[in-house]
């Protein structure tokens, strides 16, 4: 079933290096959490099963569950922490992870709308981001490219970050410095000062209206020409503040850490250097918080784009931010580090059924938090679980097109939370109807000996117990309990092929409709 050529085998030496480079920070982060747990009087959950951890990683980094083929390859390797790091190497080599991360980051950078068609191509920006992630471009460089982008949205895809803000219905032509300032602070710095667009801070006296508009002033010169986005030199930004009669010129200034702002250079280049400066802690904290959120399904500091500049900070955040800067904003290194920490590798349930996990334990990261999966993760999960082979780049073109089309349809029907992707969402009746009766699940579980895992497993596994186990691995990335095996093997025994196909379909349907399938845990 598994072709050896598709099994990536990173060198053992690399494994050692990785292990050594993350160890110190992982230990420090773990110690911080252990201290916090002791202080809060919460008991950490037991370590999670390795299969549970690789399911989390695949969902976070590829938007899908591991295939049966991948699970077999994983289990063929020796147990231990190295095995998880090997799994990460495997995911990083799979272009699905770059594509998926690109989509997740694009939501924060430009939102989900298709925007002004004539001057903006969201798809180009996403594929540019994907290329950056594939090369593991340092995150600070990537962000600088976005802030200071120039040129045509077609040939310089990063310029779409700027052109996304053009509103063709408004009288003002060209990029919108207000929207750009809001994106810059929220997405890159984890600071919300865009409320100060219209008034001073109502929840404290930290921010003034000037803070926001002086930041926006860096973008004021950006305009659209035949050659794309260019800066008009010496353009003065003017704004009428609340309570004032007239517009007044607004100088370029940053809302905090002014000493990090270069004194010379083009306005957006200065802003880009300030924002991504190694000593601009807001930048590294925001980056850590986002990676944490993608991996866990919940940010370390809530809300994801509202991190206090002066703390207090939860355990882990400062150490991870230090480490991220020390490793030159290497996102893969950060992912590896977080994935190796105790909070990430704890079970989401307690080992003692008489003393179940409490919400307080979850809030303290003393148990892996339960979070609702995003719609494309559910769709990706259904599609992958219904196939025995890995649906990566090497899967047939037909399969990939099908996966893409199905996913978009499904996400639309499910309801896309858009940019608010880490908000606490509620499940809905239409979502349950979609899973119970919708096309995707029906097509991917009904008898089809060529395409569908349900039928193929039913036909290949003479032993019902093994068929049930394979179905569980495909859909839930775990083995069934003895009770579950007994129940489902019973439905498969002594049946004619048609009846068995139907029983396999029912089994797949049941697993996909279980709570467990729809949650990260």
């Amino acid at each position, binding site marked *: 079933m598994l072709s050896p050529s598709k099994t990536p085998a990173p060198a053992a030496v690399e494994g050692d290096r990785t292990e050594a480079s993350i160890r110190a920070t992982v230990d420090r982060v773990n110690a911080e959490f252990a201290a916090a747990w002791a202080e809060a009087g919460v008991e950490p959950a037991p370590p999670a099963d390795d299969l549970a951890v690789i399911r989390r990683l695949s969902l976070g980094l590829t938007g899908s569950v591991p295939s049966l083929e991948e699970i077999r390859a994983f289990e063929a390797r020796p147990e231990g922490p190295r095995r998880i790091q090997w799994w990460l190497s495997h995911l990083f080599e799979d272009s699905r992870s770059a594509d998926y991360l690109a989509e997740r980051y694009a939501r924060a950078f430009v939102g989900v709308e298709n925007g002004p068609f004539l001057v903006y191509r969201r798809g180009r920006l996403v594929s540019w981001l994907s290329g950056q992630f594939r090369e593991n471009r340092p995150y600070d460089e990537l962000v600088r490219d976005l802030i200071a982008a120039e040129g045509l949205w077609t040939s310089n895809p990063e310029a779409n970050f700027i052109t996304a803000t053009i509103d063709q*219905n*408004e*009288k003002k032509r060209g990029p919108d410095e207000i929207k750009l300032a809001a994106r810059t602070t929220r997405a890159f710095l984890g600071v919300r000062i865009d*409320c100060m667009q*219209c*008034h001073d801070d109502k929840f404290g006296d930290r921010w003034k209206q000037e803070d926001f508009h002086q930041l926006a002033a860096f973008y004021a010169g950006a305009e659209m020409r035949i050659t794309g986005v260019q800066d008009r030199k010496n353009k003065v930004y003017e704004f009428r503040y609340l309570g004032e009669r007239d517009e007044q010129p607004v100088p370029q200034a940053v809302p905090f850490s002014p000493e990090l702002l270069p004194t010379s250079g083009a306005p957006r280049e200065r802003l880009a250097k300030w924002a991504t400066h190694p000593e601009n802690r807001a930048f590294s904290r925001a980056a850590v918080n986002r990676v944490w959120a993608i991996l866990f399904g919940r940010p370390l500091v809530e809300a994801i784009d509202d991190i206090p500049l002066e703390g207090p900070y939860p355990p882990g955040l400062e150490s991870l931010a230090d480490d991220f800067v020390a490793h030159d904003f290497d996102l893969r290194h950060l992912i590896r580090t977080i994935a190796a920490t105790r909070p990430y590798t704890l*079970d*989401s*349930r*307690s*080992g*003692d*059924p008489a003393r*179940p*996990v*409490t*919400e307080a334990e979850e809030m303290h990261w003393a148990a892996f938090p*339960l979070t609702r999966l995003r719609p494309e993760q559910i769709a990706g999960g259904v599609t992958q679980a219904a196939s025995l082979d890995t649906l990566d780049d090497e899967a047939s073109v037909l399969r990939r097109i099908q996966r893409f089309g199905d996913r978009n349809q499904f996400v639309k*029907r499910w*309801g896309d939370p858009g940019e608010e992707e880490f908000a606490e969402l*509620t*499940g*809905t*009746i*239409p*979502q*349950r*109807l*979609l899973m*119970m*009766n*919708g096309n995707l699940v*029906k097509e991917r579980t009904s008898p089809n000996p060529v395409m569908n895992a349900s039928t193929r497993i039913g036909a290949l596994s003479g032993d019902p117990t093994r068929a049930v186990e394979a179905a569980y691995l495909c859909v*839930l990335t775990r083995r*069934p*309990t003895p*009770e*579950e095996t007994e*129940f*489902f093997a019973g*439905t498969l025994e002594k049946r004619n092929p048609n009846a068995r196909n*139907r029983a396999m379909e*029912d*089994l797949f*349907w*049941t*697993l996909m*409709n*279980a*709570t*467990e399938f*729809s*949650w990260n845990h």
Partner: protein
Amino acid sequence: MISPECPCGAADHWSRRTLLKAAGLSGIAWLTPLADRLALAAEARSVGQARSVILLWLAGGASQLDTFDPHPDSPVAQGAKAIDTSVKGIRLSENLPQTAEILDEVTLVRSVVSQEGDHERATYAIKTGYRPSPTIVHPSIGAVVCHELHDPGIDIPTHVSILTGRWPARGGHFGAKYDAFQIWDPVNDIPDVRARVPEEREARRRAGLDAVEKAFARGRDPKLEADRTLHLTNMAEARRMMTSEQIAAFNVADLPESDRAPYGDTPFGRGCLAARQLIEAGVRCVEVTLTGWDSHANNLETQQRQCAVLDAAYASLIRDLRRRGLLESTVVICGTEFGRTPKVNGIDGRDHWPHGFSIALAGGGFRRGHVVGETDPHGEKKEPADKVPVEDIHATVQHALGIDPATEYTAGQRPVILSDGRVRENLLL
């Protein structure tokens, strides 16, 4: 009849939907069992006759000047005109000719004030009657109604949002199960309501699901399902809908053209018509959203375009409810997150204005043909005469429904009351 074990999928024959179809009956109002309907009719309490709410939500911020509160002779009018209405002495914007005819059913509050000028925060404030708080999520009016009045015992959700905007009605601290059920343009069936397998296989699937859920629950919070996932709860609700004929109330496609035309050939118009059907079927609260009011530029054109859609739908809804004897028991609220600045900005637009704007209330014991409050004709930022803070609207609507706004709940560790507003007796009959 055929036994449920029959392999032809005969279990379908047992669902009420199929039975009814076989009987060749049409219409939906009678589908709520007679006893329930009588019970609903008998819900009259000592205070408040109303038992349901329709909220027409003008998302983005409708301009009071171009809808319910024109100042045609003032420089702030942008040249917009006003027309007479069925209530002597009260004029509306010329954008609302049909509404003008039914204004004798409406209590118009022209002096609503709130403290929120941001779309999201203001939407929260108007829908819940509270300012956003970092520690608690307040339930919206529909969730309050569903939580406080008894369960009408119908097969479809009792809190519905049609053409949901960005911030739909939430259950807040009453929990996710009080969130509104969302649907889109009601010319289409609710998708995926038909089971794919016969009942015998459904039953087997349910049995299997029990086994999987049991394994998942081990070591987890016993209240996980009730407090957070609602997974099995929603599945059970979904199943109940799947076998109910009441889902027809979500769809207006089969209604005769003569019923549909007055509401206007728009998704919002159809939404209002579906709202009427849903209320008739026993639903407690329906929210219908019309987006597109945020006229920072070209205010006049924007408001005109929006009003054309609103006017036909709103007036037809009021007429229809009245004709069917449902207006006494239904509060119809036409509201928006804030009004718009009386002074026009540099690009012929109006910006956000929470300092005196309009909300219209009709039915459910609200006075007929009555106006409260007055805004400054010159558009100065001063308190409107007889101002009505938004929380007072909530308290008054709750009162009309026989709900005591002072009813206390614990949210997190904190006691909260349904509304801290004042009941405005002068708005009620």
